[in-house]
């Protein structure tokens, strides 16, 4: 059955499958696409995926769970967009998301995706944990509830529920407090930002989540938002305006970089000995929002730390695969993108791998452990480095 409504019918045939998108900006290997790096079958390459989508859309191939797995293995990292030399490159991820839209509309999504969406609908988070436990991340700390302060500190689902990310969420809460930032949190009332819901192709649920958040923010008088996660930042900054959610949205590194410049971040002490630190750009801060400087400015300002770059950095940064966190599709192998990235970080000789995204934090910390690199390099969220 052909899908006449597919939004990119007039574009998708233009992918030649030349494979430029397999390479990172430094051409070092064919690990640019996290899914292809992991599976190494042509079907999982960005081009292979587009050709499969086209075949499905044209009725040449029937839908199958495996087809859906391949389509959903795209982590939306935009590395292919960066490398494709053709003029439609901006639409590559959109073409995949549009295919996901079609699958969602037909009720044909992989089980993991369905579960993810069910959980969001039921609990307001993808973990399936009751909304009542959303404040667990505070662990006895009492960050102020949002009551008209200058900023809403939006923690997001990983920061709220994932034990490793919770520590980053607390660290950020502490840094903001120590720096005298006027902020409050939503606590139990916070619901998912919807970034992944959008990218999984569930337009209607995304709209409902976004509207719920927007309503709540407006009711509480929120004007400015600080997010822990670049995923939240992306949704609120770029997609919420579609639903009249016009807030001033900041990723926390932007706020902290500014505070450091104004010398308002207090009590940051460096390591005992000079130490090298490297930074992993999160896709949703970097390629999706072109913010490469704020995190680096913070790291460069810290005493005792020298920033060393991995060969793949900024717009060419490798993706850890975390954008695909609804399923373990990308984990489990030496060739998993997070493990590749952990090796790259260790190869710089840095003792700290700094991240600025709770997804990257959990992915890379696990990867460092599995790679047996714990004694050489520690994974830290920038907020954690600052407390």
């Amino acid at each position, binding site marked *: 059955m052909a899908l006449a409504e597919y939004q990119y019918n*007039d*574009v998708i*045939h*233009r*992918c*030649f*499958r*030349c*494979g*430029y998108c*397999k*390479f990172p900006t*430094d*051409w*070092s*290997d*064919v690990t640019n696409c996290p899914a292809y790096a992991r*599976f*190494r*079958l*042509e*079907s999982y390459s960005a081009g*292979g995926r587009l*050709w*499969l989508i086209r*075949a499905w859309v044209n009725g*040449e*191939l*029937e839908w*199958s769970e*495996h*087809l859906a797995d*391949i389509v959903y293995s795209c982590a939306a990292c935009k590395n292919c967009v960066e490398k494709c*030399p*053709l*003029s*439609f490159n901006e639409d590559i991820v959109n073409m995949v998301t549009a295919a996901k839209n079609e699958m969602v509309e037909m009720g044909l999504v992989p089980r993991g995706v369905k579960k993810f969406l069910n959980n969001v609908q039921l609990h307001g988070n993808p973990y399936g944990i009751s909304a009542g436990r959303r404040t667990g991340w505070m662990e006895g700390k009492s960050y102020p509830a949002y009551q008209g302060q200058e900023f809403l500190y939006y923690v997001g689902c990983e920061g709220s529920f994932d034990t490793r990310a919770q520590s980053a969420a607390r660290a950020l809460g502490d840094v903001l407090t120590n720096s005298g930032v006027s902020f409050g949190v939503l606590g139990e009332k916070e619901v998912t930002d919807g970034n992944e819901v959008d990218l999984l192709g569930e337009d209607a649920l995304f709209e409902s989540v976004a509207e719920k958040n927007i309503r709540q923010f407006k009711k509480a008088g929120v004007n400015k938002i600080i997010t822990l996660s670049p995923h939240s930042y992306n949704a609120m900054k770029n997609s919420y305006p579609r639903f009249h959610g016009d807030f001033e949205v900041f990723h926390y590194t932007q706020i902290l970089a500014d505070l450091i410049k104004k010398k308002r971040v207090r009590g940051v002490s460096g390591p005992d000995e000079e130490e090298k630190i490297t930074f992993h750009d999160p896709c949703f801060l970097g390629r999706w929002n072109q913010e490469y400087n704020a995190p680096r400015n913070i790291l460069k300002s810290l005493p005792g730390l020298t920033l060393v770059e991995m*060969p793949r950095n900024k717009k060419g940064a490798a993706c850890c695969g975390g954008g695909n966190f609804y399923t373990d599709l990308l984990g489990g*192998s030496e060739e998993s993108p997070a493990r590749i990235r952990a090796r790259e970080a260790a190869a710089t000789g840095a003792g700290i791998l700094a991240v600025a995204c709770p997804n990257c934090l959990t992915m890379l910390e696990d990867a460092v452990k599995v790679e047996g690199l714990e004694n050489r390099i520690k994974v830290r969220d920038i907020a954690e480095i600052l407390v």
Partner: protein
Amino acid sequence: MDTIYPSLVHIVGEGYASFRREELFTYSKDLGTSEPKWPDYVAAPKTAEQVAEILKLANREKVPVVPLGGGMSLAGLALPLKGGIALDLKRMDRIIEVNEKGRYAVVEAGVSHGKLTAYLHNQHPHLMHSEPGAPPAATIGGNLAIHGQGDLAHPYGFNTDMINGMEIVLPTGEICKFGSCAVGAGWFTLHPLPDVGLFLGWNGATGIITKVSLRLFPYKKFREMEIFVVEDENLIPEILYELTHLGLTEDLVAFSSAIPPFSDRLHHVSINVTGDSEAEIELKRRLIFEVKLAKYIESGVGGIAAVSQAIQRPQVSKSADWKKGGGFEYVGSIMPVSAYPECYRRGAEISTRHHIPYTILGRVIGCGHAMMFSWSYAFNRADEKTVRHAREALHETDNIVMDLGGVIWKPAVFGQELLLAKMDVNTLSLMKKIKLLLDPNNIMNPGNWEVD
């Protein structure tokens, strides 16, 4: 019950073998105009030993095996014409050794040209290999399996002339070495042992290349491209003769294309000039323009279109996406340089007839001993009529190559048949014997270089 799939999984590991329709679909398609040909299985081995196991399995089960590198050869050469196992070799991607002073690199065959270039650039900035103008995902093994040529073709010839040794898995599963590595010495020379090299240019039909020692050459720090232009195509052979006599350039390519319009019907010669200093480049530039090409400039038949351009890796974009169609394929040929004018004229005529803007190119191989001449035909992947036009144009061009006394390079099956029909009968019989000896069950890329 199918035992092949579990055996493949056992050999290459879970996740690297498939018989699911989605993978089979992906490997059934070529980037060019070829009709899809479906494999029955896909496997992506990591080591030569795994390749050997797969070939033994294939012999037992009498199933074809079709090696695949980057899949960039376009002419359907890596399509499973008779089904069987599509063997994706790109996981065999280790750069094993670079001998800086001996100027060679030992690599697995699935290493991409892009990766090797980047590696040398970072780790051995004084060295380079001859990279084809293909997309960088093209592999070392795939390129040798079709006698490719790269950006050092003028000084050093075909890429297959730049080999110091090879490891091959024979169709029956034995792993063999050729060159000095075969006697346990380093991988520094292919000669002087008895020549048993029957694997290059065979599209994998006589065995799978798994390791290669590639010659490397000095990478000069100062690099630039000059472009000379003439209107009269008849001048191109003598211009190339002059420049090859000078012998001071790295890559010499003559080209012409209908798009962009300002260059339509003009013939450009791109000349890559490199040196260890600005002074060396300057001297070479002077010798090229003020000595060798001055007469064309003075008489008004030629001009300098560009000097000191940065040398960049060619991008596939323009040719592949003409009119937003996403497709092209070309006929390549190995031709005497003197055939350039006729090749151009005949090609432009075919293009016009098929409503495709012409794009032709001739890259000098060796000291003007031959050129790789190509005719590209764009098509719209979503419009079957244009695909048909391109396919017909390709076939007509194959015939032209034969007419003009050239040799079709990396021919599709259609072109292979034209060549085999013209082949010396004793040579043909030898090819048949070799194939039978090495591949008694005819499992290796059947349909390619098949002698009846």
